[in-house]
């Protein structure tokens, strides 16, 4: 019996009534692994990911049905603040807080939750988080500078560090490298593989190569439906569904 951290059960998400962007998705995500969600633009992959930490509540028109269980608890019934602390998120574009220094950005999760820390605790969290994302050596002398002064790739690693600072169970990543150049992308991919011992990662990507390189399990979504979900290696070498095969061989998408 494998250790399941995240359970989607008949999840439907709709932006407009009667039209599901995510249609009846059921899947189990395993703990301590990287699971990628692939699919062409508009297939509902980001929508599904954002349902997990209830980001959709920013937009009142969006309706979600079904259930999503995180560590056995239905997140749709929990307080969104608790859900979001258990499931950190990294977005498509790096979004460090522009008014905060690098140091403050890392600690933002604590500040925003009203958690007080001693100076030593703060220093330790900042150092370990930056170290974990490989940014410590690059920024240790400029911790008081604004986060927005870093390069795109560094900013994205800062955002990952910021999400990890709260020690979430799951890290949700919504095309985290699509705004970055190949070198920065490679650094982030290496980082994710190292991180999976501490945190389960669910990553949305439209880059098949990326999914193949880093993920253990892959989902393929098309038109809101979960077409195929299997071990990445198996899916890439021997896809069960015709649509998956067509996508992986570049015939659409």
């Amino acid at each position, binding site marked *: 019996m494998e250790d399941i951290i995240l359970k989607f059960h008949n999840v439907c998400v709709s932006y407009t009534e009667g039209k599901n962007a995510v249609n009846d998705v059921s899947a189990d995500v395993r703990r301590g692994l990287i699971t990628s969600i692939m699919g062409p633009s508009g297939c509902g992959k980001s929508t599904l990911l954002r349902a997990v*930490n209830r*980001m959709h509540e*920013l937009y009142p028109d969006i309706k979600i049905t079904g259930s999503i269980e995180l560590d056995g608890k239905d997140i749709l019934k929990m307080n*969104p*603040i*608790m859900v*979001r*602390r258990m499931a*950190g*998120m990294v*977005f498509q*574009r790096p*979004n*460090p*807080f*522009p*008014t905060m220094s690098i140091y403050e950005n890392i600690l*933002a*999760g604590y*500040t*925003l*939750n*009203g958690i007080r820390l001693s100076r030593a605790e703060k220093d330790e969290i900042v150092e370990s988080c930056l170290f974990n994302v490989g940014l410590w050596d690059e920024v240790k002398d400029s911790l008081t500078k604004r986060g*927005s002064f870093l390069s795109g790739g560094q900013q994205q690693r800062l*955002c990952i560090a*910021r*999400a990890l600072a*709260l020690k979430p169970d799951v890290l949700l990543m919504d095309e985290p490298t699509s705004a970055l150049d190949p070198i920065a992308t490679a650094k982030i991919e290496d980082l994710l593989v190292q991180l999976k011992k501490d945190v389960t990662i669910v990553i949305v990507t439209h880059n098949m190569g990326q999914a193949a390189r880093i993920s253990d399990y892959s989902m393929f979504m098309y038109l809101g439906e979960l077409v195929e979900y299997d071990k990445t290696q198996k899916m890439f070498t021997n896809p069960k569904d015709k649509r998956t095969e067509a996508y992986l061989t570049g015939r659409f998408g």
Partner: protein
Amino acid sequence: MKSYSIRILKDRLLKTMVIILSVLTCVPLVLIIGKVLLKGYRQINLSFFTETTPSTLDAMLAVNNNQLIPGGIANGITGTMMMVLIATVIAVPIGLLCGVYLSENRKTRFAGIIRFLTEILQGTPSIITGIIAYIWVVVPMRSYSAIAGSVSLAIMLLPLIIRSTEETLNLLPESLKEASLSLGSSYTMMVLKVLIPSAFGGILTGILLAISRVIGETAPLMLTALGASAIQWDPAKPTSAVSLLIWEFYNDPNLSNMIWSASLFLLILVLVLNLTAKKIAKKWKI
């Protein structure tokens, strides 16, 4: 080929028109500033800032002897500063929160109503805010006062601050909100620690520009602050203001030279506020 040269000609004609008209709009402004500078600078010295308004008699004697009018506008400067300060303290918290509300609930019906009402308030003639402040404050307190003046100025500040706050917050990217909410931030913390600090430059600029708009208001102050010939620090007593003094100088032929100096002072004050606002907007840009 012929139509081509006509098109070039038309282009040139329009460009010339635009330039001429733009220059024309500057003419009144340059004339005003020039007049105020030329006629106003002579009266400006240290006592202009430290002494209160002279009596008609003193001024008449000085003018007849071809001397500078003694005294200054210190009572007006302190009054203006005090009233603007109180008005800002009243209007900023309300305006800020209202602006946050409007920006966060852009499409709701209630926000639409509020937005419409702020627009009306912004277009309300200033004398009417003076009458309202008279009824609200002067009548119950049974005295003209700086507080009443501040209330009327605060009413005028409110719509300006609300709109500038709303517009600045609307410019913030949605990703900032997502970033803070995804860290488990509560709504209050997101507004206080992320949205307002990120928009701080724009909000402060808006506040300064709003102050520069109301600092020269006269009509509402006539009905509320009334005026005083001495420096008055008690906000519950009638108080003078620079704009009120200009009106008083206008009504007294012996003091008419002081009109220009007081106007110059107000103009410079507004200019400094505007320049500071621009500097801040530039420096705090994200």
